[in-house]
């Protein structure tokens, strides 16, 4: 039990998935159980020389154009033009995921509209593609005209702006920007808002778009795998891993205070039992060599949840498939768990999805909640030769047919931001 004052507990009561491995709960669950990846061949800028050949693509959407008029999405989602006009490509994913999550939680849009107890926390890096397009026009016409929706569709708050306006959120609206830890931060602070009694419900949204403008700058950092075989491209903890694979999509979690959720008879995926964060203070982009900040973040998350390392039976690792990052996380995990003689199952679902950057923490928290609720544990299907640094970790290739009861979900971002969640099976 968390030592947070007030005794309020936070539950995950709804999930929405627009991901490389499925655009609904059923498909996502089946992909995680079967170890079926969602990576597909890509070519950016019409140039086969670009050293990025696969990515975690989002299916059934078309958002490549800089004009929203040319975008398409599954027809079951009602996205009006007056909302679409200010959106980025990843905003369309988020819009669909939020509609899905509300329905999954047994809520209608009217239930959250103008409700002072419902907040909206979003994680987004903005749209580099639209920003580039808008600024290119600005320079071309020497500042004499510009798209009036250019700001709200491209800067990092684009999700908050558009979703808050459409869904008429009046409780609180906030955005989070800490690179690959962004969505994990959003979930953590949403949890705190509920535990502090400021909000009863928070819709947490993570989203990322997949295009040349978002992804290729990472190739310039030599952070992306050049492989064309998906199974070789994203293989966290494998000795042959050579970089991450980009991904896109959106995942939405509905977090609710426990008594509030119970009063409306909500179904529960899992309890969000606590979280912790700590920074490396080391490098602008690289992980600390022994994951020092991640170690502290994990310890703080466990302390916040009031559980010990031996109670964790599954870790959804950040595990992006980069040589430095996976090694640092492996060392951090061993340091934390070995000291207590604990040996949880560990997997990185990025082997299946690629790494969706700002979305990662929400997507993986959603996967963890789904696994706990449905009773399975994701595996590491692309792992062939375990890296020596990871040798003592319990890294099953196949998914397990039993679900965890206590989960640790790790995320790390540029600048050394580390955020960890603890999710607990909810027993009614």
């Amino acid at each position, binding site marked *: 039990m968390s030592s947070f004052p007030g005794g309020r507990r936070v539950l995950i009561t709804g999930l929405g998935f627009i991901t490389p491995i499925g655009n609904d709960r059923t498909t996502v669950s089946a992909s995680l159980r079967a170890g079926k990846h969602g990576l597909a061949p890509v070519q950016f800028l019409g140039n086969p020389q670009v050293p990025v050949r696969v990515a975690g693509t989002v299916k059934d959407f078309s958002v490549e154009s800089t*004009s929203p*008029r*040319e975008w398409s999405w599954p027809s079951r989602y009602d996205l*009006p*033009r*007056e909302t679409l*006009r*200010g959106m980025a490509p990843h905003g369309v994913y988020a819009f669909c995921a939020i509609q899905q999550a509300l329905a999954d939680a047994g809520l209608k849009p009217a239930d959250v509209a103008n409700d002072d107890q419902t907040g909206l926390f979003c994680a987004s890096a903005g749209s580099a593609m639209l920003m580039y397009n808008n600024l290119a026009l600005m320079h071309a016409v020497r500042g*004499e*005209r*510009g*798209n*009036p*929706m250019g700001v709200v569709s491209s800067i990092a708050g684009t999700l908050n702006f558009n979703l808050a306006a459409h869904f008429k959120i009046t409780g609180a609206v906030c955005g989070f920007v800490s690179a690959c830890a962004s969505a994990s931060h959003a979930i953590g602070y949403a949890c705190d808002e509920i535990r502090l009694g400021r909000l009863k419900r928070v819709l947490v949204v993570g989203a990322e778009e997949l295009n040349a403008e978002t992804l290729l700058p990472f190739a310039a950092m030599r952070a992306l795998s050049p492989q064309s075989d998906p199974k070789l491209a994203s293989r966290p903890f494998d000795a042959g891993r050579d970089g991450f694979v980009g991904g896109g999509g959106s995942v939405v979690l509905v977090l609710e205070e426990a008594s509030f959720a119970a009063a409306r008879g909500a179904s529960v995926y899992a309890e969000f039992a606590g979280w912790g964060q700590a920074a490396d203070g080391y490098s602008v982009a690289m992980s600390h060599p022994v994951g020092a900040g991640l170690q502290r973040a994990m310890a703080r998350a466990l302390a916040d949840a009031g559980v010990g390392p031996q109670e964790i039976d599954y870790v959804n690792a950040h595990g992006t498939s980069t040589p430095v990052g996976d090694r640092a996380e492996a060392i951090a995990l061993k340091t934390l768990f070995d000291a207590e003689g604990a040996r949880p199952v560990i997997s990185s679902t990025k082997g299946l999805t690629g790494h969706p950057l700002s979305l990662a923490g929400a997507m993986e928290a959603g996967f963890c909640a789904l696994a706990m609720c449905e009773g399975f544990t994701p595996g590491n299907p692309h792992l062939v030769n375990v890296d020596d640094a990871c040798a003592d970790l319990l890294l099953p290739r196949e998914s397990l047919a039993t679900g965890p009861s206590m989960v640790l979900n790790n995320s790390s971002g540029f600048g050394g931001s580390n955020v960890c969640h603890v999710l607990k099976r909810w027993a009614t």
Partner: protein
Amino acid sequence: MSLANLPASPSQLARYPVEARDAYERFRTTGDVAALSPVILAAVRDFMPKRSLGVGMELRSDMRLMEDLGYDSLAVAETVFFFEDLFKVRIQNTELMAVRTIGELEQFVIKKLADNSKTSSA
């Protein structure tokens, strides 16, 4: 604005009705600003909130953009930018103050382009 600088088949009109694209082409090749009404009406319909006009209802020149068609200030700004971008002209905020109805918008765009044509050919 110079007609010679206007592209044939601009991407902004790609999804517009054929009569709007034909009207643009007539304007581009002949300078006939009076031919532009179908373009202006198509743009009004395109930027209008979709739920504000009932099925089968036709646009009338006396309809007010905000009160009758549900335009907000951003939709007005989008529409203005559309014309700026399509015709390569610059429209000042102050010029728009008197534009409230579809008919007034139509007259404003036509006059603006006619004035610009005179200026650029002078």
